[in-house]
């Protein structure tokens, strides 16, 4: 039971790490709209406002031509040749861009559709958009969406499998307890003890075992999370296991004690019904 609940607890950690990682990855994915160099800033800002009104869009960041140039210089400051070429060009060759962040990676398709169907146009009707890098990102975004879905489904499956396994374990434990006490049970039956009187103690014992196991797991996670957090902080991209545990202790407590209570109670109830012929 302790092991089972430890697995449940680890699954909470895993899902937290996973969602943290996914969130940070999602955060990095965006769609950039590059405008032609002649696009007037007012048009771009107006378009930015229109984009921001779409419900799927979380935020739109505007990068002006000068900022783009600065970023380019910064990026290539070691590369004299490129910088020289830039100097020789004289004019700023870079266009302004809008970086669009969606609420959910799957929303990018509809946002890009909007961009394709209602592109901002200049007075003469020519499009102001030079290119949208969505189609380069599309593969990455699609894969990520798939990966997130698959991970969520796999997580649910793992939880289900472990719940099943732990029920079977609890089942076997109660069966053993019933077997050990079979003489006593036979005596109680002959003395006319009611079914609840005979079954009750096993169910209560199952519940106590489940809740005790939950407390053991809660206590064990404290040092484990402490040492694990320092070892994995870098690897998990700033996600601190120990802080997460202490901040979400109430969540862990409710889930683990509740799971222990239910698992112990339900498993022993069914085991008693199954193996205790009265």
């Amino acid at each position, binding site marked *: 039971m302790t092991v089972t609940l430890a697995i449940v607890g680890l699954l909470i950690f895993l899902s937290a790490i996973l969602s943290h990682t996914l969130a940070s990855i999602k955060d990095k994915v965006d769609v950039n709209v590059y405008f032609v160099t002649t696009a007037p800033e007012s048009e771009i800002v107006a378009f930015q406002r229109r984009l921001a009104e779409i419900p799927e869009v979380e935020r739109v960041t505007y990068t002006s031509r000068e900022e783009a140039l600065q970023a380019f210089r910064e990026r290539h400051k070691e590369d004299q040749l490129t910088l020289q070429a830039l100097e020789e060009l004289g004019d700023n060759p870079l266009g302004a861009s809008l970086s669009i962040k969606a609420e959910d990676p799957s929303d990018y398709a509809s946002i890009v559709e909007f961009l394709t169907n209602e592109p901002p146009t200049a007075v003469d009707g020519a499009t102001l958009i030079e290119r949208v890098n969505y189609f380069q990102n599309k593969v990455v975004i699609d894969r990520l969406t798939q990966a997130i879905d698959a991970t969520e489904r796999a997580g649910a499956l793992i939880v289900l499998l472990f719940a099943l396994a732990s029920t079977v374990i609890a089942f076997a434990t109660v069966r053993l307890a019933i077997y050990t006490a079979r003489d006593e049970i*036979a*005596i109680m039956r*002959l*003395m006319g*003890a009611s*079914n609840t*009187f005979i079954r009750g103690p096993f169910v209560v014992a199952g519940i106590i075992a489940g809740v005790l196991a939950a407390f053991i797991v809660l206590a064990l996670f404290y040092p484990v999370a402490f040492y694990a957090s320092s070892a994995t902080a870098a690897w998990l991209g700033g996600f601190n296991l120990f802080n997460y545990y202490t901040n979400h202790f109430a969540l862990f407590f409710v889930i683990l004690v509740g799971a222990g209570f239910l698992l112990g109670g339900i498993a022993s109830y069914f085991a008693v019904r199954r193996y205790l012929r*009265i």
Partner: protein
Amino acid sequence: MILFDRVTKHYKDGTPALDDVSLTINPKEFVSIVGHSGAGKTTLLKMLLAEERPTEGLVFFEEVNVHDIPANLLHHYRRKLGTVFQDFRLIPNRTAYENISFAMEAIGKGDDEIASDVPYILDLVDLGDKAQHFPHQLSGGEQQRVAIGRAIINQPDVIVADEPTGNLDPVNTFEVIEILKKINELGTTVIITTHNKGVVDAMGKRVITMEKGRVVRDDPRGHYIL
């Protein structure tokens, strides 16, 4: 009144345990059932305790067909019967007192009643001074007396004793039978199975003789004849 009406029992492997047994036991009777091992004595008692179902025939206890009682009400029926076994079946990690009080707890009696009734019963079976002894600290006869105390504590209508003296020496046998007689005189039906010729002959009460699953003799003032 207990009525066995043409009861036949075949076990799964086909061996007949009871063959067309009909008999009536009236309230306050003291009945000894005798016969060789395998004659069907224990099976007959198991029918009455609703532990086994007859293949054919009916078993009645006070107008109720014992095997029609639904499983969730069976414990109410079993409270009318007190059981005693050859191997005592005491709970080893409970004292004599606790073994008897356990029977009262099992049917939901309150603490006050337990505290007043158990010492009385312990005195009745002559174990007042050994209340705090565990079964392994008691002799066979004393253990059987605890078992009898446990069987009668809830004032059953019938005491069913399956070879209660089978594991006991003559002195203890005599004591156990004396207690059973005393219980019978107080108005409880007693049904015992036994191998002990001395017990049956000394009693001078009704004797039912069984052989190969059949009742071959039923004497109101019988002797042990095989």
